[in-house]
């Protein structure tokens, strides 16, 4: 019986690379991993957006309308719906002048969970407390 904590750190802006999207979708997979684990074993990812990665969190993304591709916003909403902890770096948001009300939420889908704006110090603690780091 063991919980393994993972730090998912997304540092790249969306759409120019598939990698930031895959950060969200791989983190989400924690939900179904138990079918492959022993009884009582769990994986707990925390999904953190830092640096240019915070640009993934801007809401109102029209990727589906324009390119027919699920938006990173939708992937983020799905993360919130499956109760993942999603952190976005406060200092980096401020650097870009992005306010909290510009950030993706999943209220329209009935999610209580929100993306949490946290100081980098908190993300550092996530990395320190994790067994492994996945840097996207």
């Amino acid at each position, binding site marked *: 019986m063991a919980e393994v904590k993972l730090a998912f750190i997304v540092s790249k*802006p969306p759409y120019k690379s598939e990698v930031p999207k895959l950060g969200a979708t791989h983190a989400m997979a924690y939900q179904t991993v138990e079918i492959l684990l022993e009884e009582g074993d769990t994986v707990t990812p925390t999904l953190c957006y830092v640096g240019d990665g915070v640009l993934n969190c801007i809401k*109102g993304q029209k990727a589906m*309308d324009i390119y027919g591709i699920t938006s990173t916003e939708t992937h983020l909403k799905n993360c919130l719906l499956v109760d993942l902890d999603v952190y976005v770096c406060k200092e980096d948001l401020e650097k870009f002048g992005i306010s909290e009300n510009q950030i993706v939420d999943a209220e329209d889908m009935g999610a209580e969970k929100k993306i949490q704006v946290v100081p980098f110090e908190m993300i550092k603690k996530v990395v320190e407390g994790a067994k492994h780091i996945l840097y996207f």
Partner: protein
Amino acid sequence: MKLGVFLSEYRTDTSILQRLSPEKLGIILVGNGVYHAAIKEKGQSSQILNLKADFYALKEDLETRGLNVSNLDSRVKPVTYADVVDLIFNEYEKLMWI
């Protein structure tokens, strides 16, 4: 030389543009290049916009990223794919994707 440049990255080396210093330069911001047109860092606009050039940003790529025409720096004109075709054939002789 009338040079039309497609800039599709937010972080990339653009020094070649200063070095080439064409008589007429157009910079068409596409993909993550649109952040140059719509995002400031520490209150500062992208340095790219200080080049002596005409600037365009692909509307479709702005909107894909949750940005829109209201976020655009006043130096940048929004364009569609159809507009880009006309820029290619009517405004510039040579093209570069950097």
